[in-house]
């Protein structure tokens, strides 16, 4: 089976997750082998996900932990008889 680019885009996320059924995955793979646009879309999507998931992107505010644990200690003291 041959599929066009738009169909490939539909499967791209599950392809990345390795969640496609074998047959669909092979079809997508065959398309990717010869379509540089879809390959570039796939690679850039993977790249974007990796960068976004990097610990440096979503940083905790400075002093977050200290303030959190102080708050919890206050809660402990409040419960203490």
């Amino acid at each position, binding site marked *: 089976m041959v599929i066009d680019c738009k169909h490939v885009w539909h499967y791209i*996320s599950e392809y990345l997750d390795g969640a496609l059924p074998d047959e669909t995955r092979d079809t997508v793979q065959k398309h990717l082998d010869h379509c540089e646009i879809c390959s570039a879309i796939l690679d850039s*999507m993977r790249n974007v996900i990796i960068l976004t998931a990097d610990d440096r*992107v979503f940083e905790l505010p400075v002093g*977050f932990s200290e303030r959190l644990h102080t708050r919890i200690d206050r809660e402990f003291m409040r419960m203490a008889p």
Partner: protein
Amino acid sequence: MKVPQISNRTEAELIAAVLGGEIQLYHELIQPYERSVYVMALSYVKNEADAEDAAQETFVRAFRKLSSFRAESKFSTWLMSITINEARTRLRRQALIRMEPLDQLPDENMSISPALLRDWREIPSEVLEREEVRNLILRAVEQLPDIYRQVFLLRDVEELTVSETAETLNISVPSVKVRLHRARLMLQKQLAPQLKTVNRTSKRRWLPWS
């Protein structure tokens, strides 16, 4: 602040110990989840101070109701549900004050096309050392419709499985897949062209005349 003593106990043992009265161990129990809870809260309330407040409240509430935690779900999933509840409560309160409608639902049938590129050269994670790049990414995630952002953060940033994500958000597995797909497409569409430029300028900086 006290330096937490790491006791090498498993999570289940820690929970049992806290419930058994060794409440100080709660500090250690929650340490691995500080960031996840904060990020999740931030994805709802969208400003750092409110997110921090919501995160603190989440951990306090989780402590108070720890005895209702059931071992059949994961502690992380349980914590995430509390976080989401806490964040939603806050939003509702704010919306009442501001009279703003809560999340507008995106049109699930509208098709999203990715950014078309002819070639993609891997962008190394060193670009994240630059604040402007981190901000580009943060802004793109922030602009996602709420229901896509939540799924994306749990799946791709917090690395929950599809079924854990479904359980946490109380939605179906197929919904998780569709929303994740759409979130990723939107991010690729927005970020791929921007990051390409960023990567180019970062190389140029090393040339002698710049």
